């Protein structure tokens, strides 16, 4: 019942899966395509710097079932807003899509997103007709500003990209989710299905996972595990989790005298 009405909508488009996948770090195109299939993901990101649409066989694009999976080009590698806008336009031309995962990291070591440049580029690209999904810090104010700038969703990070540390930013994600009028996709740092589940239980609209699946000894089974975890977490969110309590409710050491 829940699944029938519970769809993820971004810019008017409906997705049945709330798991997005990144396509880097996989050992081969075949394994990538099997992992995507097993995960049931319908949205995968592709770095434009790796895409080679003119090659005889592209190592990523040619392994994606584009009838069932939306390809979301990303701007990984750009260092400022101008470069991002340029690459976005190239991506639109090359892949025939106005959807874009905007990521601007001037810091090549930790790949931290530049909040100022991201906001600037989001404004510009939204005006230009792009469906922009910006990768950003788990900063509630920034997420509201991105929303106002026209972002179709926001993609705050759980922890540093590729770190598998999970939701280190959870208190800020909670605020972002509470305040958002656009879908919140938790991106980066999710290293285990339980962490994906946690994000979904908190009310995230979706999560994006890459490293944890790609570098697993068995990416296909791990893809499936993440698919299941995202569904379970979402269902738990919809069902409503009970409150967590640290003390047993039957004891009332301070007010027990009232009933005695």
């Amino acid at each position, binding site marked *: 019942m829940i699944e029938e009405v519970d769809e993820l909508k971004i810019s008017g488009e409906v997705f049945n899966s709330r798991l997005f996948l990144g396509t880097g770090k*996989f*050992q081969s195109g075949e394994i990538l395509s099997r992992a995507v299939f097993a995960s049931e993901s319908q949205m995968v990101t592709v770095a434009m*710097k790796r*895409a080679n*649409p003119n090659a005889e066989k592209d190592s990523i694009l040619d392994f994606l079932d584009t009838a069932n999976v939306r390809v979301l080009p990303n701007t990984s*590698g750009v260092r400022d807003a101008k470069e991002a806008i340029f690459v976005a336009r*190239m991506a639109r031309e*090359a892949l025939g899509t106005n959807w874009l995962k905007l990521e601007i990291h001037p810091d090549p070591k930790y790949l931290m997103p530049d909040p100022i440049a991201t906001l600037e580029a989001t404004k510009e690209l939204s005006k230009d007709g792009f469906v922009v999904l910006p990768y950003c810090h788990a900063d509630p104010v920034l997420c509201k500003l991105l929303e106002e700038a026209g972002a179709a969703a926001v993609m705050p990070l759980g922890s540093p990209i590729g*770190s598998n540390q999970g939701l280190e930013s959870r208190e800020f994600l909670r605020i972002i989710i509470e305040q958002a009028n656009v879908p919140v996709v938790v991106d980066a740092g999710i290293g285990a299905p339980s962490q994906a589940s946690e994000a979904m239980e908190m009310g995230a609209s979706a999560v994006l996972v890459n490293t944890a699946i790609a*570098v697993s000894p068995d990416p296909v089974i791990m893809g499936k595990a993440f698919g299941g975890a995202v569904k379970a977490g979402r269902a738990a969110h919809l069902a409503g989790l009970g409150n967590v309590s640290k003390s047993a409710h039957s004891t009332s050491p301070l007010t027990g005298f009232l009933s005695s």
Partner: protein
Amino acid sequence: MNSFLDKYENTSWSDISSRIELSTREEVEAALNSDGRCGLQGFAALLSPIAGIEYLEEMAQIAHKLTMQRFGKVIRLFAPMYLSNECTNVCDYCGFSLGNKIPRKTLSIAEILKETAALRSQGFEHVLLVTGESTNKVSTDYLFEAITLLNEYFSNVSMEVQPLDQSDYQHLIKAGLHAVLVYQETYERKSYAKHHIKGKKTNFNWRLETADRLGRAGINKIGLGCLYGLTEDWRTDSFFAALHLDYLEKKYWQTSFSMSFPRIRPYEGEMSPLVDLQNRDLVQLLCAFRIFNHELELSLSTREGPALREQLLPLGITTMSAGSKTNPGGYSVSDDSLEQFSISDERSPDEVAQMLSLKGYEPVWKDWDSSYHFKSKTEPSKSTFSGESNSSDIKMVS
């Protein structure tokens, strides 16, 4: 303007050397248990003799895990393109040294295009331009022209040429230059002076400050390294390379870095390596660098043989050359008589790619796009993204 030279002058070679030598098991273990953030102090311990003897497998396991997490199951491939073997330096380890009686050649634009066609047909998207040092034959204008041209055909153009001025680098970046490799060769002044006998390359400080000039010019990536065999104390030499890296990474935080580990190969000259860096030492070096810096690109050339290259793969390598020719025109025009050094891994790029797949790695030919250098261009029509194939243009030239 301050540079790494200040830090270099204030760091004592002999202090570092004895610190590395005297590292204790406790220090090595602390570095191993630092969750991979061991700092320079931990790096010194990881370079120590005791680490090499007693902790190598443990280091390898950690290095493998860290590399997998950051880079995944992929290896980037590139090819060097030697543009010129003209050189006005006398260096006792290099085939291009001024005194060597070899035919000299600098590729013309037409010859560069022939080499381009050969490399593109092998699948290469990333190219590294290499020259000797001859400002008359290989000027900044020549390099500008070559880089501009090659950006039409390759996704990523880097170079390994003589140190230049900051303004020259700024100029070449506008042409689409992505990265510059400039190895100090050795960080020990005495050994440096001994092997670099004549010419501009004798200027140790000018070379040492090159990475600062590159950082200030805003280059995307800087490649560092020592040439192993020039100085006896390879451990301390490597520590200085790490010190250099650490300094640069904090100062030029928008730049990424790579480290290479070339060992001296036989060439057309006299000198045999002063010290033979053993395979075991090389493994220790690779692992120590990976544990010290998770994000560092570690590059391995065809100087090393096929079997060793395969065994070093999982320890931290992220980038490899394949099918390299080290002479100008080697892919299409000339025979091997002009080469800088003879390579050890003579497999074709295709064979190397197949080996990588068998080992569970995706060979990545393209991990950049020339359109990222759009600032220098008026319109992006020659990019890979544009839907036009460039390869047909080249075939007409060859």
